[in-house]
């Protein structure tokens, strides 16, 4: 079967849309590459060549000696595994021929990122950082201090992210708030070793996903994307540390330095 030029352009647009959604919502480069290629080939292209970088994708579809190339800029829209699952499901359904090109396009355009209730997330993050304080050997008063410090930091983080603030500013301010609240516990001596709360309450700001994605990109051959993600995660870590140091300078509780 041979497709017209319009049909080839259309399949390229559908494939690049899928790749763009994946890259914007925090999928690793290998997954973006494979899924985009599979969708393009299932829609009838002979081959799909694409170049994934940290903030854009370039894709070329080949068909009977004709090439169609298109580029999409991919702004980071936050990690959302729900979107990654949905795109993957559309890809599998397309390969099993349960969907045609038109339906795939419609479904991709209809995807809306799923978000958990923010107060539920705040509660769970507070409990999570409380659990970390337990791993560091804290007792119940430390657990409670950590819970309130990290829950407050999470509320601030969500508010700032909602207003589209720069992530570095956001993380530094959240770290400042969490450390300040936890240092109240140190000043009033809540529990056996209240300094544990200062260490545990900022762990909600660890950029774990970017770090893991960075190393796995580099391991799977996407060195430049991996380096870009690694640098991004390192900068986030540095801004969190600046927030902690700023708070310790203000309150005078130097919990992190032995």
């Amino acid at each position, binding site marked *: 079967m041979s497709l017209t030029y319009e049909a080839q352009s259309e399949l390229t647009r559908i494939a690049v849309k899928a790749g763009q959604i994946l890259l914007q919502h925090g999928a690793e480069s290998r997954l973006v590459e494979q899924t985009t290629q599979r969708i393009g080939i299932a829609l009838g292209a002979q081959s799909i060549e694409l170049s994934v970088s940290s903030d854009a994708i370039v894709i070329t579809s080949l068909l009977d000696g004709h090439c169609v190339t298109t580029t999409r800029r991919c702004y980071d829209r936050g990690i959302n595994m729900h979107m990654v*699952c949905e795109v993957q*499901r559309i890809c*599998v359904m397309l390969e099993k021929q349960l969907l045609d090109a038109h339906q795939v396009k419609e479904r991709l355009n209809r995807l809306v990122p799923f978000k958990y209730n923010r107060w539920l997330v705040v509660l769970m993050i507070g409990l*999570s950082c409380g659990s970390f304080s337990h791993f560091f050997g804290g007792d119940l008063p430390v657990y409670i201090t950590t819970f309130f410090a990290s829950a407050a930091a999470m509320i601030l983080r969500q508010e700032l992210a909602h207003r589209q603030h720069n992530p570095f500013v956001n993380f530094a301010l959240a770290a400042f708030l969490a450390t300040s609240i936890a240092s109240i516990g140190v000043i009033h001596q809540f529990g056996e070793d209240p300094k544990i709360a200062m260490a545990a309450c900022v762990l909600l700001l*660890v950029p*774990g996903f970017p770090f893991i994605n960075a*190393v796995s990109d580099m391991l799977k051959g996407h060195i430049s994307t991996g380096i870009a993600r690694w640098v991004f995660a390192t900068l986030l*870590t540095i801004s969190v*540390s600046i927030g902690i*140091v700023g708070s310790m300078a203000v309150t005078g509780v130097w919990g992190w330095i032995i």
Partner: protein
Amino acid sequence: MELIKLLLIDAWFAWIPAVGFAMVFNVPKKMLVYCAIGGAFAHSFRYLLMYWGVHIEWATLAASSSMGFLGLYWSRKRLIPRPVFTVASVIPMIPGSFAFTTVIGIVELNAGGYNIALAQMVIENGLRTLFILGALSFGLALPSILIYRGRPIV
């Protein structure tokens, strides 16, 4: 008996951060239970290995690679990409505290001048962060590096 009790407590406190961070990553609701099981399993397995005297880096590698293979099984079963369960499950093992201590130490080295104790803190924590992080990601990537080698998993 004492060991089993310790492991159970560890697993109990490990599933909470796994699910909490899975919710930050917006993992679909049906998959949260896998994140909880994975987080509890991986962290308590690492605890067991460290209890037996294995170094933290090697224990992390073993825990994360077994998590990688468990994620492979779930991902084939549910047709869901692997990072959806695996990353949230290893989040409790991320060396966040070491990473922050390193950078805070660097900031203090700049502010207060060089001293041996601070430099030691920076280097030891920094190296530990790098090796644990490398072990975590390498362990998770192991199934696709060793078995699938470029073919799609789902």
